């Protein structure tokens, strides 16, 4: 135990068991054990025994409040224990000052980005399209670009299976199929954290999930291209096939490349890791 632990007045349990005196190695510690107020000129006087501290007031509560308090105490104790037993290096500088360093960096980044937006708006202003006319359907119907993927998923009709048990009928209408495809895509993205666990962070450490990611990015691009197939100068059947082929190609290439790079990366990473933290 270091000295900082023994002077920590926030641990009555240890004081009660008398463990503190033992860990000090016989050296008398009058400042913390004597119960006398420390006259070190700070003007801070420990509360006398009759004044209930916040901790003591919480200790007297009943029911759920009491349970909450007990849990928090346990959690704190656990943290403290983990901190004591680990050889983790605590930061020895306080931090980067918020003002002016951090604020000026943030302000310059913000003004750069806002300037970027203003530059774009000045050079590429929006068009004025024809007014709404329910009686004429235009040749090109489009949502904004960020909804192309969703619009593309509505055009998955050819993938809607015709079931033999229904006598070649489709289980659901093509457009229902497309709307459900949207839900499936969003749902799959939502459960990613529950499928991919573990501490791997970099793509090289998890080639499979990086490949899945690349698959998703390319699919988002190709399904967007499919949604505007009348504007893309490719045969529509070829485009439909490419929509599903390209993501797999990209995914496989990513997997192969990362798998190849992995050994070298992990080797240098581990070397650096173990040099700083030799195995016991």
């Amino acid at each position, binding site marked *: 135990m270091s000295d900082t632990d023994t002077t920590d007045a926030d641990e009555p349990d240890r004081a009660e068991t008398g463990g503190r005196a033992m860990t000090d190695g016989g050296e008398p510690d009058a400042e913390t054990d004597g119960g006398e107020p420390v006259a070190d000129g700070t003007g801070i006087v420990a509360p006398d025994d009759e004044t209930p501290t916040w901790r003591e007031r919480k200790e007297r509560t009943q029911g759920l409040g009491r349970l909450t308090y007990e849990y928090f105490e346990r959690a704190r104790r656990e943290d403290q224990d983990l*901190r004591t037993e680990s050889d*983790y*290096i*605590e*930061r020895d500088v306080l931090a980067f000052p918020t003002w002016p360093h951090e604020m000026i960096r943030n302000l310059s*980044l913000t003004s750069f*980005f*806002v300037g970027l*937006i*203003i530059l*774009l*708006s*000045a050079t*590429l*202003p*929006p068009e*004025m*399209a*024809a*007014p*709404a*006319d*329910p009686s004429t*359907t*235009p040749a090109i*119907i*489009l*949502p*904004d*670009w*960020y*909804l192309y993927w*969703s619009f593309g998923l*509505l055009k998955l009709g050819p993938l809607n299976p015709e079931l033999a048990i229904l006598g070649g009928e489709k289980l659901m209408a093509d*457009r*229902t199929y*497309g*709307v*459900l495809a949207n839900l499936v895509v969003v749902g799959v*993205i*939502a459960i*990613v*954290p*529950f499928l*991919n*666990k573990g*501490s*791997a*962070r*970099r*793509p090289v*450490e*998890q080639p499979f*999930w990086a490949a899945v*990611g690349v698959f*998703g990015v390319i699919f988002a691009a190709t399904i967007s291209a499919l949604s505007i197939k009348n504007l893309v100068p490719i045969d529509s059947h070829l485009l439909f096939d490419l929509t599903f082929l390209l993501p797999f190609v990209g995914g496989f290439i990513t997997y192969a490349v990362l798998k190849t790079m992995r050994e070298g990366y992990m080797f240098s990473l581990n070397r*650096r*890791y173990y040099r*700083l*933290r030799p195995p016991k």
Partner: protein
Amino acid sequence: MSLERKEEHDHKGWMEERDLTPVEGAYLTVLIWLDKRLRVVDYLEVLEDLYYKVNLQMPKSHTEQYNLDNKFWYWYPLYALGSFSTIAYVVAAISGALLGFYYAPATTGDPSSAFNTVAFIMTDLNFGYMLRSIHRWSAQVMTAAVFLHMLRVYFTGAYKEPRELNWILGIVLISLTMVFGYSGYLLPWNQLSFWAGQIGVEMSLSIPLIGEWVAQLLFGGFTLTQATLLRMYILHVFFLPFVVTALIAVHIGIVWMQGIAEPH
């Protein structure tokens, strides 16, 4: 025994016997005045607690400890995408509020008030063209930044424990951003808006079981009318701003609490 009320805690006397600067005196006066009415002292412990929590130092991060900063700083521009989308959101909110002064969500008129007011903003209003341009571009930039932000989070594995909930919250936010964009796309009530709205109605009608109900709720019917435009308008300027702003605050609050996940 005098009739004059004796104060047990003579704060005034205490202040006078001390040699206070005017600033200190004014501060104490205000503090005592507030404390007599609101019992500020009772909350001091909470404030103190918060103060120390804010100033808590995290242990050295993985990148710091193993000298991997280059891996973090190299990717720093990608780590700014979240704040970039927030900035774009703020710019869109300001320019959108200004646009709201001149826009009227009505399909009446020739061809429609909505279209005419947008035309007025674009042609007659001073800086109106620029204003609409800024609003539109900040919306585009926000959507793009949110999408790239999601990719960054995916490829650096930042969604893993303990950040799963924030990942799901992020998916809700990106969806709401798209709804934001979609409802805004419909507001000028031009051909593109109208037929994009038509697709929206058909998509909602395609939802099994609750399709008709959703179409009624979001579009105010099965064809595009004044009700549709008004619903999109309220969604765009009233409902979504509150919901999205609150969710962004929670999203950023959680990031603040948990710290930024670095690849390691």
